[in-house]
């Protein structure tokens, strides 16, 4: 039972990150009807931008000394008499990393937002009104371009980045077994949940959000009501890319920066279809369910089985409910 709890919590934590990635795909789909197969690779770019701004830039010779490692006197004094790997030490390490973590996050957000705008303007705008097939395949082509570009710029090397939050271990007893959790993972989960909630609220209650929903409902009507549809498009892409940057940074701290991060996009795509392309609630539930299922598979069957969990579940769900758990059925007219 204790073991079960351990893996359930692990699953919820990765589920939250899946949800954060998924929100990008759903937002773009809602506004533009494009399903972005390359979203995973945009996330990978977010991770590499975080790596650039949090590790490479502060490591440069011309960077000020406090940037890579901030060591004010009070911090040094506090650190002096702590044993290695103590919980407090983890917090202090985080504090001295704080300047570059902040630089990393803001840099990644800005750079990824810019990337999203460029992609939207150059590749997606000309395809407005084209067939779904063409739009899917353009994002597929984007996969190759992004992954080639990333290995050209950063070399395809797995690298280490600082955690966003203090990585204090959390340990407690439940049902007779010790439960191990990483502090940073808990914070990551909270960040992911807050962002997810924030975006749902944005789309539901703000003026910009209403514009997105109106465009989703009917593009030409939205146009005639004075909504700038191209602006809505680019806003949706920027939104997806910025959430992607955060998700990328989180994934990078968990798993290291590497080109394999792009593959997350495919499992999340499966999750999105499972939940229903245009339903935030459905996607959230599907992400959590897949996260937990994956963790359980990992526990019972081992690591390699966990990799196909999203794919098996999406096939089962699509056979039973072709438009996902909460997706709205498209009405076709002949």
């Amino acid at each position: 039972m204790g073991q079960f709890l351990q893996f359930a919590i692990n699953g919820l934590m990765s589920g939250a990150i899946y949800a954060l990635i998924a929100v990008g795909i759903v937002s773009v789909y809602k506004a533009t009807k494009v399903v972005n197969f390359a979203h995973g690779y945009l996330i990978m770019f977010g991770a590499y931008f975080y790596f650039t701004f949090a590790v490479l830039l502060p490591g440069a010779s011309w960077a000020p000394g406090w940037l890579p490692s901030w060591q004010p006197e009070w911090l040094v004094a506090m650190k002096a008499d702590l044993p290695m790997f103590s919980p407090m030490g983890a917090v202090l390490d985080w504090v001295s990393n704080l300047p570059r973590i902040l630089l990393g996050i803001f840099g990644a957000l800005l750079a990824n937002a810019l990337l999203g705008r460029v992609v939207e303007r150059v590749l997606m705008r000309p395809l407005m009104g084209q067939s779904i097939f063409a739009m899917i395949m353009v994002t597929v082509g984007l996969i190759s371009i992004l992954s080639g570009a990333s290995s050209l710029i950063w070399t395809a090397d797995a690298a280490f980045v600082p955690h966003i939050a203090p990585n204090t271990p959390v340990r407690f007893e439940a049902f007779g077994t010790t439960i191990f959790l990483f502090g940073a993972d808990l914070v990551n989960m909270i960040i992911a949940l807050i962002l997810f909630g924030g975006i749902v609220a944005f789309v539901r209650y703000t003026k910009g959000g209403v514009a997105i929903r109106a465009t989703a409902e009917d593009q030409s009507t939205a146009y005639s009501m004075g909504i700038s549809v191209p602006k809505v498009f680019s806003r949706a892409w920027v939104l997806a890319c910025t959430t992607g940057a955060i998700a990328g940074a989180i994934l990078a701290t968990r798993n290291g920066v590497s080109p394999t991060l792009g593959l997350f996009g495919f499992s999340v795509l499966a999750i999105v279809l499972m939940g229903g392309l245009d339903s935030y609630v459905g996607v959230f539930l599907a992400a959590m369910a897949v996260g937990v299922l994956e963790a359980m598979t990992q526990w019972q069957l081992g690591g390699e089985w966990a990799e196909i969990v999203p794919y098996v579940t999406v096939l089962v769900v699509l056979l039973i409910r072709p438009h996902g758990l909460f997706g709205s059925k498209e009405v076709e007219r002949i």
Partner: protein
Amino acid sequence: MINGNLKSTYGADERVLDNAYKQAFVYGSFMALAALAMFANDYVILIACKMGILLVAVVGINILTGYTGLVSLGHGAFVAIGAYSVTALHNLFTGIIPEPVMVFVVVPIAVAFTALIGVIVGLPSLRVKGLYLAVATLAASFIVIFLVEHDSLAPWTGGVVGINTPAPNILGWQLDSKREMFILISVVAIVAILAAQNLVRTRVGRAFIAIRDRDYSAEILGISLLKYKLTSFALSAAYCGLAGVLLAYFFARILPEQFELDLSLELVAALIVGGMGRTMGPVFGVILIVLVPELIKVIASGFTGGNTASARYAAPLQEIVFGALLIFFLLKEPLGINHIVDRNLRALNRWPFARG
């Protein structure tokens, strides 16, 4: 429109090569292939064999995507199934069936088996389409590769470490050199193209096209969606399975990672670049998709003089160019190279009276 197209008999109108241009082109290609087999150096043969194998698979995708309008991003898995099942069958039947006739037993079984899996994977196509189907096939291909790699099937598939493949023996003719394989591959590829070309002239092919243009309308016209969508999946899977068989015969060993997502995307990209729903589309597409990376490699090594420090830029560059080609054709020339060729031929034909 091509002039000199006057037909005086129904027979002439129904021929596959219904005008002199097509005849010249097809017979010319036969001669070119024969010349390649005789005179080309090993490197050219190697590239040509790869093109041939890929071509058979892309012709299969063309039936599904080009003619029936169903999108699949997972057909690499069918190539894998063909390759692995033919190898497993060879190993199973060694000693039971004499070597010279082995090919005639195992290849049909392997292709039929792949077609059967194709039907199973195609089942979601009855309820979902477009994007959902793309993801469903993608998911199915991840699962197939997972199963191929998995330990429990390792006695037949070799697991992650791969498995050695047999060299084919056709009635006593042992094809153990690349040049001999090239002859086999070109014959199979030509037959595959002709068969596909003929298919779209039949009732089945016309049903496919009707489904592509509007599936509900087709159903109202009395075309059974169940039957024809699954037939299309089965046929395209069979073609990919055949490509897998050739691949297994061509290479001495196969590994699961040869059949992953990259292959599936390459197949679809070749089709889009070449021209969907056209007989020659796959041919043009495959030539471009295989040649461009090779050219980049050659040009890059020419520029850098074989310098290792800069060799690392070639592979990412190939990847970028691959994506850029795909996007360029989607945005600027959605009908593919085939359309460019058509346009130029037409202009040439009408010259000097009109320009296109």
